[in-house]
């Protein structure tokens, strides 16, 4: 087994996930929150492909394709919601939804 150690690949995946999680928690702009979610989902897909490459099974790549479809559905609905959010609250700050007297 002359491949890359699985730990190193998973460390990369975990680091990417942590960066995305920190971005999701820190940033208040909705677009940055969406992009942080993209980073986190991408890190999860990297972990799947690493595991699939470790045992030479195609299941990890199938899971990555599912993640691609989920990301597409996620962004399609999420971006439409963001544009509606901006129309309603006149802001891209997610805390504007809690501060104002908006509809709930």
């Amino acid at each position, binding site marked *: 087994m002359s491949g890359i150690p699985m730990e190193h690949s998973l460390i990369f995946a975990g680091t*990417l996930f942590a960066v995305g999680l920190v971005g999701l928690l820190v940033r208040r702009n909705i*677009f940055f929150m969406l*992009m942080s979610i993209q980073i986190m989902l991408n890190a999860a897909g990297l972990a799947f492909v690493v595991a699939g490459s470790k045992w030479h099974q195609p299941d990890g790549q199938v899971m990555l394709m599912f993640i691609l479809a989920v990301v597409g559905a996620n*962004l399609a609905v999420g971006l439409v919601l963001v544009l*509606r959010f*901006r129309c309603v609250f006149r802001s891209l700050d997610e805390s504007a939804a809690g501060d104002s007297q908006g509809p709930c």
Partner: protein
Amino acid sequence: MYAVFYISGAVAVISSVMVVTRSNAVHALLYLITSLISVALMFFVLGAPFVAALQVMIYAAAIMVLLAFAIMLSGSGIETQNDPGLFRRPMIWAGPVALAGVLLCGLIYAVTSGGHTSLDGAAVTPEQVSGALFSPYLLGLELISLLLLGALVGACRVGTGDKNAEPGGTEKG
């Protein structure tokens, strides 16, 4: 090939940190595309060339175009209109271009030197992936198609809005 993997992983982490720390959404989007392409190169080195191509074609191209359109529509990069020379200054695009250049060098090295796409010499071929996708994961595939249909209908419903609702109000349900 080991160096290509670690370099692309470092590029992925660096560009992801740049995504989180940017102030302009368009600049963050450039770094996000760089991050996705570097992860695709990691897939390529790990012996998954099929999903590497899918990652570049679907994720880094199509889905990011969707995100770019939404950012432009929302006017999030509106402050650049006050400074028309902003995109002509090299500092804005120099970072993603430099990182993508590093990835290009890694890709050229991986293609020309390796001859095969996996470090173990046993890449998972697209035949295996499609065989697994269409026999044991067929139900998941159907569920994914239902999910995409639901997302399409939901996006159309929310995007067109309720014309009868009062201004500032949202539709119920």
